[in-house]
């Protein structure tokens, strides 16, 4: 890794450039006097993401957006979830439906485990039409199951092929073992990590070169739990795949259960994406984006090089 790390000049108003060497006498002088040593906010450039990872990451952006939104379009065709093999309409775990009140007014009603919520305007009834998820959340925006399926099944292939290539690369390049697997030290430091996160304190210096424990756990669970789960439950909804691999029905508890898990996994992705994007913005938006576009990430060493007063 050493060859990949290079020091960069600190450039900024009022900051002394490192490229101007100071005469040794002057340095000695400054040490003798009470003058503060030149501040040293060194910016170290680290090559953080290799090209295959970057391509894979950015392919996932349109893929996931389209898969989620076309998935909601498909869900709208039968806006209810069940457990088991069958969809007995009176046994729904969740349903999102338009309903007419006694006064003739239309309402959107979301029912979760028998509890009813008025979700007019967002779920069940929005912009004058009865539909589970609103037009802004679906692809295509109009109610169109056939086209939603076409988008979904095409990008499902892109997502799966991209995922398989990524996994292969991540294992071979040791990205998994080196960067993603939490170490014992990581796990022991989890208490401090919780505190730091709650205080919006972000790692700097050497610490910032590696993924922190929550990043590792989040990335690893998305890659090794949620993504495989969403693909396998998607396949379990295929009547042909069920005849080829009947054990899929057994492990997920039936086709309708698989559909429910698929939906939950989808919202795990949504949750992950929201937090991920938020963290990208909070921890230095441009630096983060650059590191995922060019690979280079800048780490600030805020206190290194500053001579400490005795």
């Amino acid at each position, binding site marked *: 890794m050493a060859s990949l790390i290079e020091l960069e000049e600190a450039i900024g108003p009022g900051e002394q450039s490192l490229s101007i060497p100071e005469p040794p006498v002057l340095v000695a002088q400054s040490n003798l006097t009470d003058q503060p040593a030149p501040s040293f906010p060194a910016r170290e450039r680290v090559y953080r993401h290799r090209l295959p990872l970057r391509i894979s990451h950015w392919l996932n952006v349109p893929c996931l*957006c*389209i898969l989620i*939104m076309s998935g909601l379009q*498909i*869900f709208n*065709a*039968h806006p*209810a979830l069940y457990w088991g*093999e*069958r*969809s*007995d*309409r009176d046994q729904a775990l969740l349903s999102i439906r338009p309903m007419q009140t006694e006064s003739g007014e239309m309402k959107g009603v979301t029912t979760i485990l028998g509890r009813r919520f008025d979700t007019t305007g967002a779920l069940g009834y929005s912009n004058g039409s009865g539909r589970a998820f609103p037009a*802004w959340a679906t*692809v*295509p*925006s*109009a109610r*169109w*199951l*056939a*086209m939603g*399926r*076409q*988008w979904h*099944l*095409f990008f*499902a*292939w892109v997502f799966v092929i991209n995922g398989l290539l990524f996994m292969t690369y991540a294992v071979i390049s040791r990205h998994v073992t080196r960067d993603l697997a939490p170490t014992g030290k990581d796990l022991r430091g989890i208490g401090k990590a919780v505190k730091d996160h709650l205080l919006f304190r972000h790692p700097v210096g050497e610490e910032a070169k590696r993924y922190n424990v929550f990043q590792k756990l989040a990335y690893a669970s998305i890659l090794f739990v949620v993504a495989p789960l969403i693909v396998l439950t998607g*396949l379990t*909804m*295929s*009547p*042909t*795949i*069920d*005849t*080829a691999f*009947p054990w899929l*029905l057994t492990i997920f508890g039936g*086709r*309708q259960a698989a*559909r429910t898990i698929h939906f939950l996994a989808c919202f795990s992705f949504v949750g992950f994406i929201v937090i991920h994007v938020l963290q990208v*913005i909070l921890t230095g*938006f441009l630096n983060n984006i650059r590191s995922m576009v060019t690979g280079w990430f800048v780490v600030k060493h805020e206190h290194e090089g500053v001579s400490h007063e005795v």
Partner: protein
Amino acid sequence: MKYERAMERRQFLKGTMGAATIMALSGCDNLTQSTWFPSILNKAEKLTERVQRAVTPANALAKEYGEADISKVFPANGNTDPGTGQYAEHVVQNFSEWTLEVVGLVQTPTSWSLAALKELPSRTQITRHDCVEGWSAIGKWTGVPLGDLMRHVQPMPNARYAVFHCADVDDEGISYYESMAVVDCYHPQTILAYELNGAPLDVPHGAPIRLRFERQLGYKHAKYIMRIELVESLAGIGGGKGGYWEDQGYEWYAGI
């Protein structure tokens, strides 16, 4: 000053992200409306068919369930009554004058009355029906294996598809039809069902016979079948895509 700049940056970010979302969304809708983009999306269907056929043994059976698993209500979707005068007459006559014709690229075109079909060896299966909309229902179906009829009529070597012409006509006067690959006609669970849950098939569920094509989605399971035609190409039949729903953008290969 620093704070204001941060605010401006935040506003800018919010603005660009909002605009990007709206552009992406209307972009998706524009792509959907174009002719070239859906034809790219369509390529996934062929890939899915190839891969699914490669990983699924030709005679692998769909899961069969027990009596206790049968749905209390088996939804009747799509058309629930063909509504034509001719069909109404068949209903009044209890389908005694109804015949199933198997014609087209076959050595021995044959017609069967409902009684004749019921005399042939039958198969009973409790299977799950998966609708393209997302719901599933379990029912017990009894009928004659389509493979047996195929062995009788002997398709010619160039016959690639079996087309099911149905009695139902939609509000715009378009006749319902469906099609499947000839190779799928021989699957042991592909039957022409005349009973549901031990009772003669009723009108909403496709009387007198409906196709059970267990390894594909519900819209492939044609109801109210009048005639089966073996053909080499689907072009020129209906909208040319191989079925009523296919002509409206649903996949011909409905394995997922």
